[in-house]
């Protein structure tokens, strides 16, 4: 079963042709990892799916075309987004950040599940989100999408810029969330990808150059050739 189908997606930002015909599918109830060297267009791909960058080509979600739709319509249709730089609302409290993300359909039990997953957020609910540590901010960023029923979650570099201990915490949380969810995760941390990914996409120069099983990540030579990094690293 396919949740999302991207076909011949092109994105131009100013004069730069960033995505040059990206095509891939995202299977339902599986975690798809999107990997590649820096600057190949991974984050741009997620942003284009969210409608944050205007693209040409086709992005169909449950058979509905997303190109041309506004970001809030795409999000309302069940696509949740955890951005690269967390982008929590620093002047709002933790509770207000969550309340903002909540919809009419959000149940009280969803808050309880969030606080069970991230107990720190409950004790800091009245604290301004801007005064939280990077790891806690990432928890807010993840928590606000988990409040609602999502059909697919787009996660952009969730461990970027975090201290090693926090990387483990966030990775643990994501691994829990990933069970039974449809997710696309852009991540450089090979250990986290090996732990959660069930489907792998590799990008280079604005195109998908590999789509298939993540088992390939066990081959250090393949990893070095495709991603330019050593095959080690686990969190």
């Amino acid at each position, binding site marked *: 079963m396919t949740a999302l189908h991207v076909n011949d997606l092109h994105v131009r930002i100013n004069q730069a042709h960033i995505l040059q015909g990206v095509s891939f599918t995202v299977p339902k109830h599986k975690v798809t990892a999107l990997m590649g060297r820096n600057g190949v267009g991974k984050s741009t791909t997620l942003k284009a799916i969210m409608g*944050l960058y205007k693209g040409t080509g086709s992005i169909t979600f449950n058979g509905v075309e997303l190109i041309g739709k506004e970001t809030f319509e795409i999000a309302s249709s069940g696509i949740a987004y955890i951005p690269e730089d967390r982008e929590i*609302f620093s002047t709002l409290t933790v509770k207000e950040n969550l309340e903002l993300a909540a919809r009419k359909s959000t149940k009280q039990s969803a808050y309880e599940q969030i606080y069970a997953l991230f107990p720190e957020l409950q004790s800091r609910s009245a604290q301004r989100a801007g005064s939280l540590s990077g790891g806690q901010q990432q928890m807010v960023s993840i928590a606000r999408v988990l409040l609602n029923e999502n059909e697919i979650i787009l996660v952009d570099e969730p461990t970027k810029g975090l201290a090693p201990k926090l990387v483990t915490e966030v990775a643990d949380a994501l691994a829990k969330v990933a069970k039974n969810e449809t997710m696309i995760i852009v991540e450089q941390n090979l250990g986290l990808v090996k732990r959660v990914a069930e489907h792998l996409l590799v990008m280079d120069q604005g195109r998908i150059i590999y789509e298939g099983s993540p088992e390939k990540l066990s081959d250090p030579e393949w990893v070095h050739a495709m991603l330019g990094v050593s095959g080690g690293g686990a969190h």
Partner: protein
Amino acid sequence: MDTFILMGITGIGLGALYFLIASGLTLIYGLMGVLNFAHGALLTVGAFAGLWFATKVATATNTTNFLLSMIVGGLAAGLIALIAEQLVITKLYERHMDQALVTVGLALVIGAVLAGWFGNDLHTYPTPLWFAKGIKIGTAIIPADRFMYIGVAIALLIGNWALLKFTRIGLIIRAGVENRTMVSALGINVKRAFSAVFFLGGFAAGVGGVLVSIYSNGVSPLIAGSYLIYGFIVVVIGGLGSVPGSFLAAMLIGIIKQYANYYVTGLGDFVVVLLLAIVLLVRPQGLLGRVNS
């Protein structure tokens, strides 16, 4: 000493008028990045709508009718702001130069329509008799209408704070001022918040228009005059997007301007511009503004 008190309180009254203009400007800029040069024209629309109500509908000059006329002025200006936003501004989001040109054009059109309709002469705004009295504070006698300006500004500040703090739309506006793209990515139609802010900004300007027409001894299409410029100065000194910052800056400017005009003989405008320059050099984000990361 009585002159010092008189100047201080009338300065606060003047600051209250600036705040009524600036509160809408700062939210509109903070949330949408729109420099709304038509905001001054909304002040004039509010003044004329209030005048129409006070002279054609509720003609008895008492406090209740005056307050009602002020609300009518606010609603009329809010409605015009909303129509302008829907017909013109929504087409030009992210096109800042075009927005500036269009809102300047709107201001000229509204001013010309009002001038053609009512002429440029001053029309007396009926007010309750107690407005003309003086209230003794210490040895100073303060014109009573100044307390109306101050009271309305404080009521608007509290109303604004309550809206932003306790309502869903207020939460969306506060988040949108910080990062409207992320608000959309959470599935929220942030453009509805834009419309609400335009209406509220117009409402405050319209209410301000009624009070300015009292302060200026009448209504004319020209009364907005320097108020829009002062509104922008207040917004910059207070910090873009900060309503409390605008309140603080408006009071500061009103008081400093009055003292400078009296004690340094007519140098009020110069001192305010000097204050603006100092704030821009020392604290470019304004008194209560945030530094953009």
